[in-house]
C-alpha cells in the first residue's frame, strides 16, 4: 500500500468507498454503521483541510508575494509578466464560470437528490437564504468593502472571511518588501518556517486522504441513495457531465485562448509553438506537477522555441508557482458545480468572489503538493458553499489534475513566448527550424 502513489491510493479509497456504500445499502444496520462510524472519518478529514486553510493562505501568500517582489523589481519585464499572468488567469476562470453556467452539470442530478444533498450538508439553509437577502440591499461596491478586514484577527478566526485574510496577506507581503531588509529578515524567516511547517502538515493530512475519501464516498452513497441505489448512479452521471465541462474548458484554452495569444502577441506560429512544447505537455500530463516538469519546459522553450534564457529563467519558474490557468478554471467550475448540486443559487458577486479568491489564492500555494484541495476548501469557504461537497468531486479529480497541469504548463510557456517576443528576445525563425526536434 505504501508504495502506491497518493493519487492511486485516493482512487482506490474512493472506489472502495463506492463499493462499500453500495453494499451497505442493502441492509439498514450496515447503513447505520456507515453513518455512525465511517462518516466521522470523512468529517475529520474535511475539518483537517479547513484547519490548515487559513495558516496556509497566510504563510504561503506572504512568502509568495515577498518572493515575487524580489524579481519584479528587476525590470519592467516583471510587471509585464505578472500582468499577463493575471489576465490569462482571469480569462481562464471566466471561461470556466461561463461553461459551467451553460452546461449546468450540477442540474443533471434530479431535483429531489439536490434537495437531499442540501439538507445533508447545509444544516442552516435558512441562514444562507437570509444572507442572500442581505445582499440585495447592499451597494454595488459592497464586495470590495467586504474584502478589507476591519480586524485581522477576527478575519482569521472565521473561515468565511478568507478573502480578507488573502487581502491582508498580500498587503503584509508588499509591506515586507518595502521595509529595510534587515528589519524584515526575522519576520520573513519566521513565515518561511511557518510555511514549511504548514506544508508538512498538509502532507500529513494528505496521508489520511485515501481513508477520508473512502469514508466520504461511502457515507455519501448511503445518505444520498436512501433505499434507491439508482440514485448513486445518477450522481456518477452528473460527475461525468462535470468532468466534461472541465475538459471542454481546458480544451478551449488550448485551441482558442493560447493560439490567439501566440498569434497576436508573438512572432511564431501556433503550430510551431505546439510542436515545440508538446513533450513538456505530455510530461505534465503524466506527472501532474508543473514543478516537476519545469526543467523540461525550460529546455523546450529555450532550445526549441528560441526564447532567450534571460526571459525563460525568469518567467517559467515564476509561472510554475503563481500562474495556474488550468487550476483556476478547474476551481471555478468545481465551486459552481458543487453549488449547483447542492441547490444553492450563487449571485454574481459570489461568482466574482470565486474569481478573486481563486486568482489570489493561486499566488502562493502552487508549489505545495495537495494544496489544490486546500485551495478548493478556501474558495468554497469564501463563498459559503458547504465544504463537505468536496466528496462529490473526488472521483474524477486525478484525471482532471493531469489535464489541468498540462494547461498550466502550456499557459506558462505561451506567456514566456509572448514576453520574449514583445521584449525582442525571441528569434522569429528559430522555432520553425527547431520546434519538432
Amino acid at each position, binding site marked *: 500500500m505504501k508504495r502506491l502513489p497518493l493519487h492511486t491510493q485516493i482512487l482506490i479509497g474512493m472506489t472502495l468507498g463506492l463499493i462499500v456504500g453500495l453494499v451497505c445499502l442493502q441492509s439498514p444496520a450496515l447503513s447505520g454503521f456507515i453513518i455512525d462510524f465511517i462518516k466521522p472519518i470523512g468529517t475529520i478529514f474535511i475539518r483537517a483541510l479547513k484547519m490548515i486553510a487559513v495558516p496556509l493562505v497566510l504563510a504561503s501568500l506572504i512568502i509568495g508575494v515577498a518572493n515575487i517582489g524580489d524579481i519584479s523589481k528587476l525590470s519592467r519585464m516583471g510587471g509585464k509578466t505578472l500582468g499577463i499572468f493575471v489576465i490569462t488567469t482571469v480569462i481562464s476562470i471566466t471561461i470556466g464560470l461561463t461553461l459551467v453556467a451553460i452546461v449546468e452539470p450540477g442540474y443533471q442530478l434530479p431535483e429531489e437528490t439536490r434537495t437531499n444533498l442540501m439538507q445533508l450538508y447545509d444544516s442552516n439553509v435558512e441562514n444562507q437564504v437570509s444572507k442572500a437577502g442581505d445582499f440585495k440591499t447592499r451597494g454595488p461596491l459592497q464586495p470590495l468593502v467586504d474584502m478589507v478586514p476591519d*480586524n485581522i484577527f477576527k478575519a482569521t478566526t472565521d473561515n468565511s472571511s478568507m478573502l480578507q485574510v488573502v487581502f491582508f496577506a498580500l*498587503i503584509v507581503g508588499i*509591506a515586507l518588501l*518595502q521595509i529595510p531588509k534587515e528589519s524584515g529578515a526575522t519576520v520573513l524567516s519566521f513565515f518561511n518556517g511557518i510555511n514549511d511547517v504548514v506544508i508538512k502538515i498538509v502532507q500529513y493530512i494528505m496521508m489520511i486522504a485515501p481513508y477520508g475519501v473512502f469514508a466520504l464516498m461511502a457515507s455519501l452513497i448511503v445518505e444520498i441513495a436512501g433505499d434507491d441505489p439508482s440514485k448513486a448512479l445518477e450522481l456518477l452521471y452528473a460527475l461525468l457531465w462535470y468532468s466534461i465541462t472541465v475538459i471542454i474548458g481546458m480544451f478551449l484554452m488550448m485551441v482558442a485562448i493560447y493560439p490567439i495569444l501566440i498569434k497576436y502577441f508573438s512572432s511564431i506560429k501556433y503550430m510551431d509553438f505546439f510542436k515545440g512544447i508538446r513533450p513538456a505537455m505530455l510530461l505534465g500530463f503524466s506527472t501532474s506537477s508543473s514543478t516537476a516538469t519545469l526543467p523540461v519546459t525550460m529546455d523546450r522553450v529555450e532550445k526549441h522555441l528560441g526564447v532567450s534564457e534571460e526571459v525563460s529563467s525568469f518567467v517559467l519558474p515564476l509561472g510554475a508557482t503563481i500562474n495556474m490557468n488550468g487550476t483556476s478554471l478547474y476551481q471555478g467550475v468545481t465551486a459552481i458545480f458543487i453549488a449547483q448540486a447542492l441547490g444553492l443559487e450563487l449571485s454574481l458577486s459570489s461568482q466574482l468572489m470565486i474569481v478573486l479568491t481563486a486568482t489570489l489564492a493561486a499566488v502562493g500555494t502552487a508549489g505545495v503538493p495537495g494544496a489544490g484541495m486546500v485551495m478548493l476548501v478556501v474558495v468554497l469557504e469564501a463563498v459559503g458553499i458547504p465544504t463537505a461537497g468536496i466528496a462529490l468531486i473526488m472521483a474524477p479529480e486525478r484525471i482532471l489534475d493531469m489535464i489541468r497541469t498540462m494547461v498550466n504548463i502550456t499557459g506558462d510557456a505561451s506567456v514566456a513566448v509572448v514576453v520574449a517576443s514583445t521584449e525582442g528576445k525571441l528569434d522569429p525563425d528559430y522555432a520553425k527550424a527547431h520546434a519538432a526536434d
Partner: protein
Amino acid sequence: MKKMPLHFKILIGLVLGVVWAFLSSSLGWNEFTINWIDPFGTIFIRLLKFIAVPLVLFSIISGVSGLSDVSRLGRLGGKTLLAYMLTTVLAVTVGLTMVNVFKPGTYMDEEQRIKNRLTFEIWLEDNNMGIAKDGRSFLSDPQYEQYLTDAQKGRELSEAEKQDLEEKMKTAQMQKEASPLQFIVDMVPENIIFSISNNQLMLQVIFFAIFFGITIILIPNDKAAPVINFIDGVNAIFLKMVDLVMKAAPFFVFALLAGIVAKMADSPGEVIELFLGLGSYALTLIGGLLFVIFVLYPLVLKIFVPKLTYKEFFRNMSPAQFLAFSTSSSAATLPVTMECVEDNMGVPKTVSSFVLPIGATINMDGTSLHQAVAVIFMAQLHMVDLTIGQQLIIVLTASLASIGAAAVPSAGLIMMIIVLQSVGLNPAWVAIIFPIDRPLDMLRTVVNVSGDATVSTLIAKSEGELQKY
C-alpha cells in the same frame, strides 16, 4: 503635485469631498455618491482599523521591551494618566466657561423654554424624583398655566429613536451599576485572541501588550532576542502599511466626506437647516473645541516646550488632525498619530507607543468638553439653573465617564446619558442633539487626537527625550 505636503493634499481632498457632496445632492446624484464613492470611505476606515489593533499590540510590546528598566514604566504610566486627567479637566473647564458666558440655550423662544421646563417638571413628577434641583417649581406657578396643555404633549419621539434611546439607556444603566473598579476588571482579558479580534477591547490589548513587554525585559536576553526581532519586524511592516494607505489618503478622505455629507441629508438646504435649529449650541461647542485646539494645547506646549513654535506644532500634527476630522475615530487615526508624533515631533518610540494607544482609548478631551457644553445647554433650554456644585459634578462625571466608557461603542452619547442622570436631568434629552452629533463628532475627534499628541510630547519632554526641541 508630488512635492505638495501630504496634509495639504488631504485638505484638498477634504474640501473637494464636501464640495462634491453639495454639488451631487443639488444635481440629484446622491445615490451615485452613496453607491460608488462612499464605499471607498468605508474601506479607508476599515484599513486603518485593521492596522490599529496589531499596531497597538506590537508597538507597545516593542516600546515597553525597549525600556531600560521596568520602574521607568511605572513612572511613565503615572505621568501619563495624570497628564491625561489634567488636560481633560482643562478642556471641560473651557467648555463650562464658554457655555456659561454665551448661554446658547437662552436664545430660543422664551415661551418654548417655559414649555420645555414644564415638560421637564412633569417628567420629574412621573418618575417620583421630587422637584427640580434648583428648587423652583413652574408647575405650581399660576402664571405659566396657559402653557401647560402644550407641554403635556411633550416632545414626541419617533419609534426608532425611542428604541435606540432605550438601548443606550440600558448600557448606561449597566455602566452605572457596575462597581467603580469595574473598568480595571474589564482591562484584564479572559482570552487574548478574543480581545485582539474585537476592536472594542483595546484596553485589554494594551494591558496584555504591556504585560508581555515587561516579561520580555525580565527573561534572559538571548532568549528574548528572536522575539524582539520578530516583533520589531512586524511593527515595521504595519508602519509601512500606514505609509502605503496614507499615500492614497487624499482620495479616501474625499470619498469619506462626500459619503458622510451625502448621507446626512438629501439636500444641502437640510444640512444648513439642521444647524440653524441648534445654531447657538453648535457655535458655542465649535468655539470651545477650536479654542482648545488652537489656543489651549499650543499654550500648554509653549510653556513646557518653548522651542516648539506654533506653526511647527500644526505642521507636525496636521495629517493626523485632518484624518481625525474625516474619520471621526481616534482609534482609526491612531496609526497616523503615531507616525506624526514619532517622525515629525521627534518623540521616541518608547514613549509614543505607550502613551498614544492609551490616550486613544481613555483620553477624550473633546468628548468631555462636548458633554459639559451639551448638558448645560440642554439645562438652559429647559430653564433649569445649575449651581456651581452641580457643574463640578458634571466635570467630574464627564472626566471619569470618559475613562470608564472607553470600551463602549458610540461612547459619547452613552456618557452623556450618565452625566445627565448624575445631575438629575432627563436622559432622553440626548435626542435633542442627535441630529447634528455626527459633524460635531468630527471636530471632537480632532481635539481628542491633538490632546493625545500634546500629552505624548509633554511626557517625552519631561523624560528629557525630546531631542528635537
